[in-house]
C-alpha cells in the first residue's frame, strides 16, 4: 500500500470542503422552503382565496384582494413592459451591430442590477407626484421598468439564434423587413421569447419594495386603477411585521401561494426551454 502523498491528501481535503460548502448552501435554503410549505399548508383554507383581510382582532379572512391586485398589476406591467422589451430587442438584432447597440445591451444589464426600491422612487416622482395620489398605475409603471431590461436581453438572445437563412428566404420573396421580423423571426423564436417573459413575470410577481410607495396597498377591494391597490407581497410584508398570530398565519399561506406561483413559472419556462435553434 502506497501512503498518500500530501498532494493527494490536500486534494481529498479540498474536494471534501467543496462538498461541505454545497451542503452548507443547500441546507438553509431547503429548511426555509420546507418551512414555507409546512406553515403555509396548515394555514391555507378556502377562505384564504375568497375573503379580504379581517380587521385587527378578528380571526379568519384571506388575501383575495391581494391576489386580484397582484394579477392586475402584473397584467398592466406586462402590457407596458413586454412590447418595449421585444421591439427594443428587434432593434439590436435587425439594426444592431454598431457601437450604440453595445451600449444599449450594457445599459440593460446595468439597469437590471438597480435595486427595485429605486425603481419605486422613480415611479413615485413620475406618477404619484403629478397625479397627487398613490395608484395601481404607478405600481405597474414601477414593475414595467423592472421587466423591460429582462425581456429585452432574453428576447435578443433568442432572436439572435434564428438562422439568417430564414430571414433571407423571407426577404427574397419580397416580404418587407418589418413583416419578416414579426412573422418569421419572432415567430420562430416564440418559445424562447415566452420563456423570457415568464421569467420576467416571476421576477416582478414577488417584488415588494417598489410597490410600497406606488401601489401602496389597500385593505379593501380596489375599484379603480387610479386608486391604491392591494398586492400579495405587500400584504405578506404587513402581516409578517404585525404582532398578530392570525396575520402571521395569513402571511405564511400567502408565501406558499407566491412560492408555488414562482416555481410553476420557472418550471414552465424551463420546460418551454431553449430555442429550437440552440445547440
Amino acid at each position, binding site marked *: 500500500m502506497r501512503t498518500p502523498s500530501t498532494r493527494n491528501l490536500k486534494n481529498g481535503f479540498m474536494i471534501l470542503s467543496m462538498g461541505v460548502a454545497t451542503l452548507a448552501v443547500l441546507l438553509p435554503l431547503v429548511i426555509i422552503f420546507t*418551512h*414555507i410549505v409546512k406553515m403555509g399548508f396548515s394555514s391555507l383554507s378556502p377562505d384564504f382565496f375568497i375573503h379580504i383581510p379581517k380587521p385587527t382582532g378578528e380571526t379568519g379572512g384571506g388575501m383575495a384582494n391581494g391576489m386580484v391586485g397582484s394579477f392586475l398589476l402584473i397584467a398592466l406591467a406586462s402590457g407596458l413592459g413586454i412590447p418595449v422589451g421585444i421591439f427594443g430587442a428587434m432593434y439590436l438584432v435587425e439594426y444592431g451591430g454598431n457601437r450604440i447597440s453595445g451600449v444599449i445591451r450594457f445599459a440593460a444589464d446595468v439597469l437590471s442590477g438597480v435595486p427595485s*426600491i429605486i425603481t419605486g422612487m422613480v415611479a413615485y416622482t413620475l406618477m404619484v407626484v403629478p397625479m397627487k395620489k398613490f395608484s395601481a398605475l404607478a405600481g405597474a409603471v414601477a414593475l414595467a421598468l423592472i421587466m423591460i431590461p429582462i425581456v429585452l436581453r432574453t428576447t435578443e438572445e433568442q432572436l439572435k439564434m434564428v438562422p439568417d437563412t430564414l430571414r433571407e428566404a423571407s426577404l427574397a420573396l419580397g416580404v418587407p423587413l418589418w413583416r419578416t421580423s414579426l412573422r418569421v423571426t419572432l415567430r420562430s423564436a416564440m418559445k424562447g421569447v415566452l420563456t423570457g417573459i415568464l421569467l420576467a413575470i416571476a421576477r416582478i410577481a414577488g417584488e415588494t419594495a417598489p410597490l410600497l410607495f406606488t401601489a401602496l396597498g389597500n385593505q379593501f377591494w380596489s375599484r379603480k386603477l387610479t386608486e391604491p391597490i392591494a398586492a400579495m407581497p405587500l400584504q405578506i*410584508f404587513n402581516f409578517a411585521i404585525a404582532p398578530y398570530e392570525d396575520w402571521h398565519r395569513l402571511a405564511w399561506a400567502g408565501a406558499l401561494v407566491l412560492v408555488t406561483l414562482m416555481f410553476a413559472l420557472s418550471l414552465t419556462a424551463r420546460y418551454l426551454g431553449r430555442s429550437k435553434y440552440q445547440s
Partner: protein
Amino acid sequence: MKVSGKVNGDFVFKGITVLFAFSILVIIAVMVVEMVDQSLPAIKKFGWSFVTGRDWDAVQESFGALPFVWGSVVSSLLALLLATPLAVGTALFITEIAPKKFGAVVAALVELLASIPSVIYGLWGVLVMAPWLQSTIQPFLIDKFGFLPFFTGAPYGVSMLAAVFILMIMVIPIITSLTKEVLLAVPQSQREAAIALGATRWEMIRMAVLPYGRSGILGAVILGLGRAIGETMAVTMVIGNTPQISLSLLSPAYTMPSVIANEFAEASSKLHGAALMEIGLILLAVTLAINVLARLLLWGMTRRAATGGAK
C-alpha cells in the same frame, strides 16, 4: 404609391424599435436626473455633512445618513465575506467535482431557490430565524465572546447579525449561478493540459481553472455585493431599524434601502422627502458603479472565452 407603402412599413418599424431600444438609455437618464432633482433641497441644505452626519431627526429636520451608510456597508460586506467561499465552493462542486447529472440537479435547486421573493425570506427571517438567534446563538456569543466589542449587549434577535445571515443566504444563489457560468466558459483544454501534466483534481482547479476564471468570479462576487446593498425587504424585516452606529453585531441597525422603505411613503416634510431621495441617490450611484464594474469583468471573461479558441 404602392412602393412607398412598403417603405413606410419598414420606416415605422425601425422607428418603433429605435424608440424602444433607446428607452433603456432614457430610463437610466431619467432615473438619475429625477433623483438628483428631487434631492436638491437636501443637497443644498446639508452639503457633505449629509454623508457624515449621524443625526436622523424628522421633527428637528436634521438629517445625516451615516448610520444608514454604515449599516449598508457592514451588513453587505460581512454577508459577502461569508457567502463568497461557500458560493464559489458550490459552483466548483457543480462544475468540477460532481457527476454531470447530479451537478445539474444541485444547480437547478440553487436556481429555483434563488427565485424565492425577498419578502418571503424576510417572513422566515423575522418569524423563525430572529427568534432562534435570540434564544440560542446570541446568548452563546455573549457568554463566550462577550469580551469582544462585536458581541456585547443584549440578545434582541432582530439585529445586524440577523441581517448578515439573511443577506448571506440570499446572495449565495446569485454568486453560485454566475460563478458556474464563468467556470463553464473555461476552455476544456485548460483542464486537460493540467491533468496531462499529472495534476490532482484540486491542483487542476487551482492552477488552470481559477486563474482563468478569476476576473469573471470577481465580477460575480461584485454583482452579489450590488444585490446585497440594494436588498430591501428581507433586511428591513430583520435588522431592527434603529439609526445607530455600533460595533456590536447584536444590536439593531438600519440600512439605506430600509429607511427609504419605512419612511418614504409618509415623509413628514419636503426636506424629509428630499433627504430620503438623497439616500436613494447615493444608493443608485453606488449600485450603478458596482454594476458597471461587475459587468465589465464578466463581459471581459466571457468574451475572452468566446474568442480564446480561435486566437
